[in-house]
């Protein structure tokens, strides 16, 4: 049988045949590779990109911590971080922002997080670092609200001091000069029973936090205890634990006050 036809169709057929062979090869290769990974792999060291991280000179805001930094409870989804970011962007122009906060994070988990290589690098690049940590340590380890356990809380506080020390020293190791803004703790249960005990606990923890912060250069403690002291229901979300929109707004204002003062100082130094 003779094959007749336009050269285009013959070329098309040959191309299809060729494609089939190529794809079949790829298939065979893939099956072999998945089942028996080849030993002639590229050594990982060789391909490490020569240039380190592209040291962008852009201003970078790095936020660490727990759900407060994440913005849980803010129905607008912004939290304090986005508000601060917007404000800084207006002032500074372009600005990078990385939010590394994880909901429910405790100081122990944050301690492990900041030791990761990539997080360290980001901290090194940061021009501002913001931080909320401790709420989960305090309210989880002290037991349920009805039966606050002073002993457990005391033990947790010691661990908290230790962890906070480690966190801040890692930050300072990576970045000796940029300011760190650390929010103080507030008492979401200030209008419920046992408020004397919960208030005392929060005050104690805040003292610890301030003491540790005082040991490091340029670590600014931003107090928020007062915001949540009167009428906490106005600034708390319906879960009665996280701030609501208004609460985050207040937190952002506080942080910006501390931050702008600092920013002016820096520009004064430059002159």
């Amino acid at each position: 049988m003779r094959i007749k036809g336009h050269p285009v169709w013959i070329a098309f057929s040959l191309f299809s045949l060729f494609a089939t062979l190529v794809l079949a090869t790829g298939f065979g290769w893939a099956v072999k590779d998945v089942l028996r990974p080849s030993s002639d792999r590229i050594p990982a060291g060789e391909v490490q990109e020569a240039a380190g991280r592209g040291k962008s000179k852009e201003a970078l805001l790095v936020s660490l911590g727990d759900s407060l930094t994440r913005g849980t409870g803010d129905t607008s989804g912004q939290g304090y971080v986005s508000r601060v970011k917007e404000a800084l962007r207006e002032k500074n122009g372009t600005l990078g922002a990385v939010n590394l906060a994880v909901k429910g994070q405790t100081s122990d988990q944050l301690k492990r997080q900041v030791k990761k290589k990539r997080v360290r690098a980001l901290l090194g690049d940061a021009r501002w670092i913001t931080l909320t940590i401790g709420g989960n340590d305090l309210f989880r380890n002290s037991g349920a609200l009805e039966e606050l356990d002073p002993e457990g809380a005391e033990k947790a506080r010691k661990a908290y001091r230790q962890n906070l020390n480690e966190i801040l020293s890692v930050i300072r190791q990576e970045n000796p000069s940029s300011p760190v803004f650390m929010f103080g703790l507030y008492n979401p249960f200030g209008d419920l029973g046992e408020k004397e005990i919960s208030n005392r606990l929060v005050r104690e923890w805040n003292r610890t936090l301030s003491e540790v912060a005082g040991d490091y250069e340029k670590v600014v403690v931003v107090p928020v205890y007062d915001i949540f002291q009167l009428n906490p229901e106005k600034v708390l979300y319906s879960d009665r634990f996280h701030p609501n929109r208004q609460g985050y707004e207040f937190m952002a204002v506080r942080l910006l006050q501390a931050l702008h003062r600092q920013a002016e100082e820096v520009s004064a130094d430059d002159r």
Partner: protein
Amino acid sequence: MRNWIGLVYNELLKMVKKKRVLVVLLITAVLIPIFTYGEYRSLQNTVEQMGTSDWRSLLQQRIIDAQNRLSSSRLPEEWKQQIKLNIQQQQYYLDHDINPTAPGAPTFVRGFVEEAVSLFLPLLVVVVASDIVSSEHSAGTIKLLLTRPVRRWRILLSKYLALLLLVSFIMTSTAVLGYLISGVIFGYGGWDMPVFTGFQANGGELNTESVHLIPQWQYILMGYGLAWFSCIAVATLSFMVSVLVRSTAASIGIMMAALISGSLLTQLAPTWTALKYLAFTNLRLTDYLSGEPSMIEGMTLPFSLTILGLWSLVGLVVAFTVFVRRDVLA
């Protein structure tokens, strides 16, 4: 042998001249620019939001965001498992300082085949494969075909072989089109960029023991090879349906419904493990290459290949038996 080549060539020509192939290519040529632009937009968007184009920061942020999704209590356990594995994989990339998604046309092609293997490519295949026998019925040409002094099974086999060639052609052209079109935005370089492969999900843990790097061109070749196998399975089943059903519209409809429900069911009911014995839940073969954890537990590459192979085999047997024995009247 000459005889065979002639038969297959003839069938191939019949299929190509039907304009259906052109339509398929046209669909691809229209959709790929849209996909390209979409990807470009979302990249721009993240860069803008983060204020940095450093992929390490972007990837780190993505890991943290995924961690936060994990803490949602409404998330089904299977999803959580998958997110956890994804996080571990991304962390692996980050730790080894390799960008999993460096922009470039080859990266686009790689992403395209990984995404398209479950639905887009099979749909294209269904469009060309579904009328292969049924159209002979609706056009009435079946009688002319069968009155030739060629055995029926030979006719059917040559149709099948031509279909396989056509599937290869379509897949290759999507790759070529994707490369040419996306390169306009992303640039044409990046063929030898290193990519990790060999991740294995082991319970909830990611096993990185056999992870190794391969150049991206090899990855694309292997990815397309696996997708090719999936598409052949789809083509074979469409081929069977096309023999069984005399109306082209019905056979396309049946295949599309099966395809779509196959990909929906895995999302809807990941706990229903019997689903893994269906052909269309096993189409995502490229996942075994990228290490993307599968939704249903206990699926491995040999398993999926076996299932797809068995279904195809059954499809072929049914198609041939029916076609050889059937009375052709009208």
